[in-house]
């Protein structure tokens, strides 16, 4: 009797302690998610009440060239940025993972760009990528290369934004570095005793043990790439000729510029499904290449 009383007390305490999150979840996440699913099936402009139209928004989306354009731009960005970002961050973390003097200073320098607040960062990069007087094209000019128009060019605007993202890859460097430092020293020693070369140790010890960390950045990187918004909103506003109209930006426009709340909600749900499917695929593929002890 007393035991079950204690147990009941604990259950009550548990729900009391987590109640802030539980209430917040219902009000600010769970409730809105259900509402958003409903809105996605309606014609809703905020000014009048939602009008149910079934899957109308979804079928209009599939016939909307800008929807496809924004999806294409987003995939383009993700495919260019994520592998490059991982490669740069991984290389840097390997160079850093040595018994080197000044490691902390290097780490600070590499990480610094990723703490620059988004808006200031966007303004800085508009200036850096300025075709005539920006630092990047001036440096290119100094070595005799005529730099591209970057944000003013339909072709170069996305690569420009990718370059900017790579600059902010510092947190991945730190995550990888922590992973590398977690690789047990004995493994390397044992391999060395067995006569493994440096390169063999790298490919048969370091890389396999780092795959879970790389997998983590791949999954979160992809989710992040599908939500790229601030840069495009501030730096190019989707231009030139919609070449940087990313998915999240087009969604934002539909919702808050054109007040097509139903349409934008349908976009949000398609985004959710894309992210979900891509994440599941990655987990499935992970069995083939991610190494778990």
């Amino acid at each position, binding site marked *: 009797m007393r035991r079950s009383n204690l147990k009941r007390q604990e259950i009550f305490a548990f729900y009391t302690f987590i109640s802030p999150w539980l209430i917040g979840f219902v009000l600010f996440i769970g409730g*809105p998610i259900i509402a958003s699913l409903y809105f996605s099936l309606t014609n809703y402009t905020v000014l009048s009440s939602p009008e149910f139209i079934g899957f109308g928004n979804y079928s209009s989306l599939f016939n909307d060239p800008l929807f496809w354009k924004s999806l294409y731009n987003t995939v383009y960005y993700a495919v260019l940025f994520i592998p490059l970002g991982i490669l740069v961050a991984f290389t840097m973390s390997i160079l850093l993972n040595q018994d080197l003097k000044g490691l902390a200073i290097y780490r600070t320098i590499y990480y610094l760009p990723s703490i620059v607040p988004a808006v200031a960062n966007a303004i800085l990069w508009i200036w850096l990528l300025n075709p005539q007087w920006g630092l990047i094209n001036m440096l290119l000019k100094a070595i005799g290369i005529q730099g591209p128009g970057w944000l003013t060019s339909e072709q170069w605007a996305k690569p420009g934004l990718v370059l900017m993202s790579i600059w902010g890859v510092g947190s991945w460097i730190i995550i990888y570095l922590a992973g590398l430092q977690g690789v047990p020293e004995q493994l390397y020693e044992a391999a060395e005793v067995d006569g493994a070369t440096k390169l063999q140790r790298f490919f048969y010890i370091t890389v396999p043990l780092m795959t879970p960390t790389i997998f983590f950045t791949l999954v979160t990187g992809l989710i992040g790439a599908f939500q790229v918004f601030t840069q495009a909103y501030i730096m190019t506003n989707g231009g030139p000729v919609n070449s940087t109209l990313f998915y999240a930006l087009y969604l934002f426009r539909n919702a808050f510029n054109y007040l097509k709340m139903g349409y934008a909600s349908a976009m949000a749900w398609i985004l959710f499904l894309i992210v979900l499917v891509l994440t599941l695929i990655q987990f499935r593929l992970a069995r083939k290449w991610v190494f778990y002890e």
Partner: protein
Amino acid sequence: MNKSTKIMLDKLVRHLILIAVGVFFILPLVWMVSTSLKSNRQIFVFPPQWIPNPVIWRNYPDVFDYASFLLYFKNTIIIEVACIVGTLLSSSLVAYGFSRLDAPGKNFLFILMLSTMMLPYQVWMIPLYILFTKIGWVNTFYPLTVPAFFGNALYIFLLRQFFLTIPKELEDAARIDGCSYFRIFWQIILPLTRPALATVVIFTFMGVWNDFLGPLLYLQDPEKYTLAVGLQVFLSQHGADWGLLMAASTMVVLPVIIVFFFTQKQFIQGIVLTGLKG
């Protein structure tokens, strides 16, 4: 070539690469400060001047003449304080529940909470906006601060991981002495958690400072702008005045860099613990 020279050479090459890449990472920031100290005449020249001659300071006072950055700063600080207090209180309470107490449904709720971190925010953004509009919260700080009092999944997770490392014996003894769960949490656990709480404070600070979409959606009156939105509006008004824009950007970046330098240890630990982007 003997072995020690080889190691020396190896180290040298490594340093050279690290420095070369370091230059790529640091130059844009140097360029930002350098531009902010130039007049237009010095900005539009080739090859660029790295150290302005003469140094022009007037872009800095000019920023304050053209826009109310002090007001934006005050607004940002108000939101910062509310969010930090709210996040600390709520997230640590919830984390304690998840790490120490047992109840039916706990695992399900925990997984539910973790999965919200993976969801794109767009899925709840629109109804939430409509909700805040209907209850008259648009153009107030409430939509940006009140949710902080209901916990943040990431920080709950971070704190829970930390609580799990604290030995349970401490609390068992207190329980036997008839201490309530809340007193255990408040008097035993929280004081032991200071480093993790510091990490939460720093990340919340950075998150609020960085937030653009929230203020963009909810703050319409220029009197209410935060630094992020104020800076973006400033860009639209002074689009080609790079000295002025870089001065304003430098002032927005500087506090973040100062905080980072003083809290590097917690920062790095936090990133490693959560894999979070700062």
